[in-house]
């Protein structure tokens, strides 16, 4: 069913999904998806809207738990352990698998408090100095430090859209996650802000396993090394980004990439 390109290097998968199906009530939103997500690369999920790519992304840190009617079948492993097993702690999981949303959602607090929120609730910093250091480091990694270092006490909501999104990325980085999930992080941003986020993703690549959902094929081509194509709740094809875009094995992938539907 799913075509997985066979020329992928054998790497240690950070996360791996095995026959994952997701239901909303009786409706099957994701059908038997299996995929390995490596640490070394940026993985992009592409596909027409409503294909389930965002739903699948949310299963990776169990954010779909917040939707009462959602139900997941199958197995998703993080470092070899099923995150849906009964003993799994959701709080710890989400601290390890961070998420950045489609629309920037900074808390209505100061820039500093936005970043410090995660370390504070998880108790990752002892004392103000350490917290300051985490805030500075996270903002630097998110490429926002130079722009906001003089106004850390300003409200996070006062920043521009692109800055807000980088703030959200910095917020996710502050707890040192192992995986960062990004759900169409640039869809609400202008091209210049988008370019900055893409640069940032390239810089973070390698340090964290990154999964990005995008509806823009160009963006997938620019930022990712691995691409999975979703269609109608199924993963149709998965392989190197270059292969998917230049030499797709599946007709549906071909049609989507050449713009026959979308």
């Amino acid at each position, binding site marked *: 069913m799913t075509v997985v390109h066979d020329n992928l290097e054998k790497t240690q998968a950070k996360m791996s999904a095995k026959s994952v199906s997701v239901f909303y009530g009786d409706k099957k939103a994701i059908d038997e998806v299996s995929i390995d997500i490596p640490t070394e690369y940026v993985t992009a999920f592409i596909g027409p809207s409503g294909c389930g790519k965002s739903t699948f992304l949310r299963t990776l840190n169990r954010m779909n738990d917040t939707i009462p009617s959602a139900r997941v079948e199958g197995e998703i492993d993080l470092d070899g352990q099923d995150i849906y097993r009964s003993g799994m*702690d959701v*709080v*710890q999981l989400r*601290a*390890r698998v961070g998420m950045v949303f489609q629309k920037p959602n900074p808390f209505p607090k100061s820039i500093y408090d936005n970043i410090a929120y995660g370390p504070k*609730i*998880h*108790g*990752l910093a002892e004392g103000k100095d350490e917290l300051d250091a985490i805030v500075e480091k996270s903002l630097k990694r998110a490429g926002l430090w130079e722009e906001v270092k003089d106004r850390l006490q300003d409200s996070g909501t006062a920043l521009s859209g692109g800055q807000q999104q980088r703030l959200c990325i910095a917020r996710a980085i502050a*707890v*040192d*996650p*192992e995986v960062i999930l990004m759900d169409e992080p640039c869809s609400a941003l202008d091209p210049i802000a988008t370019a900055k986020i893409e640069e940032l993703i390239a810089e973070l690549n390698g*340090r964290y396993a990154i999964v990005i959902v995008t509806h823009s094929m160009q963006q997938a081509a620019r930022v990712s090394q691995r691409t999975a194509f979703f269609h109608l709740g199924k993963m149709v094809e998965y392989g190197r980004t270059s292969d998917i875009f230049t030499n797709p094995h599946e007709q549906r992938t071909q049609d989507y990439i050449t713009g026959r539907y979308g």
Partner: protein
Amino acid sequence: MSERIAPTRTTAFEARLKKRYAAERRFKALGLTSILFSVAVLVFLLGTMTLNGIGGFQRVELEVPIDFTQAGIAADPSTMQQPGATQALEAQGLRDVVQFFAEEHLGDEAASQFGSQAWRDVADAIAADPSILRGEANFWLPASAGLASGYQGEGSSEMQALAAQLSEKGLIAKNFDPGFLSRSDATDPQQVGIWGALKGSMLTMIVTLLLAFPIGVLAALYLEEYAPKNRWTDLIELSINNLAAVPSIIFGLLGLAVFLTMFPNLRSAPVIGGMTLALMTMPVIVIAGRNAIKAVPPSIRDGALAIGASPVQVVFHHVLPLALPGILTGTIIGMARALGETAPLLMIGMRAFVATPPDGFASPATVLPMQIFLWSDEIDRGFVERTSAAIIVLLLFLLVMNGLAIYLRNKFEKTW
């Protein structure tokens, strides 16, 4: 990962996690406790009122068998249908007849402990069915307030003793008192009823509804559909929003200073009470109405305008019918609030002692919550039960109204 290695996978983190979950559980329990507290208070309140109130629907009565064949009272069935029937029977000495048989059956001491109006119950029975005059009939007649509290184990020791004595012979009992719903106020708790207050409430509510509903709906339509964006409109909106939150007693002061100055003859009249409450209810209806009108999607207006309907036609043919369930829900809730309101009516003198039900919008009246307030001030133990019973009646009315509002809301709630 750079300096810190997977900080969220350390044992320290897991220890902290335990504490965090404990805090989570405490917080959740706190929330549940808060809710349970409110529910417990509600249950306790309703429970107290019900326990006290059950007694309020009853009264202590004495048994008196009357042999009318010895009494020599004549009653023409046709005159018995007329208003003067009671007086006619009184003129024939019915009072003494009742007193005679009471002394015979219960003894002198007990016979002196009838409520002063007890014989009227006999008169009513005769008026309802004159044929009983041809034979013997058994009556349960209200005891005096003193004997009644004696029967409940309170009051003076003589009365308690007398009550115990009568109770041994089965001559005294606490019986269901249907008259509570059909009589009016009185000084004796054995004789009171709520019909007068209830009728006053109904008359007042009719006036309130007739004034507040049309004005409220029309104002809501104007503000939501036609009002230009200018200072006047802002001022109107500000007034309405503020009026909705102004303490009710202030409306009473307005009623006192304006309505009673204009119509000094109508003190205590339902029409003044209704006008005062209408001013208080109108903003509630306007706000509910505006929300209901706002919920009608613009596409419906556009559709009607596009086939050439005038703005007035659009609103009255399309928007208003669709918004009506929401407006009605808000109206019922506003009316329920008005029905339970006491303070403004206190200001405009609707606290009269009204022993006969009001016969019109202009005659002196009281309302049910005011009756509750007046009875709550009485010292006699019998009034405690009567007050609770009146509260039960009031709460039942409110429950029905609120239930209706919730039902309407659920039935017509639409997501466009």
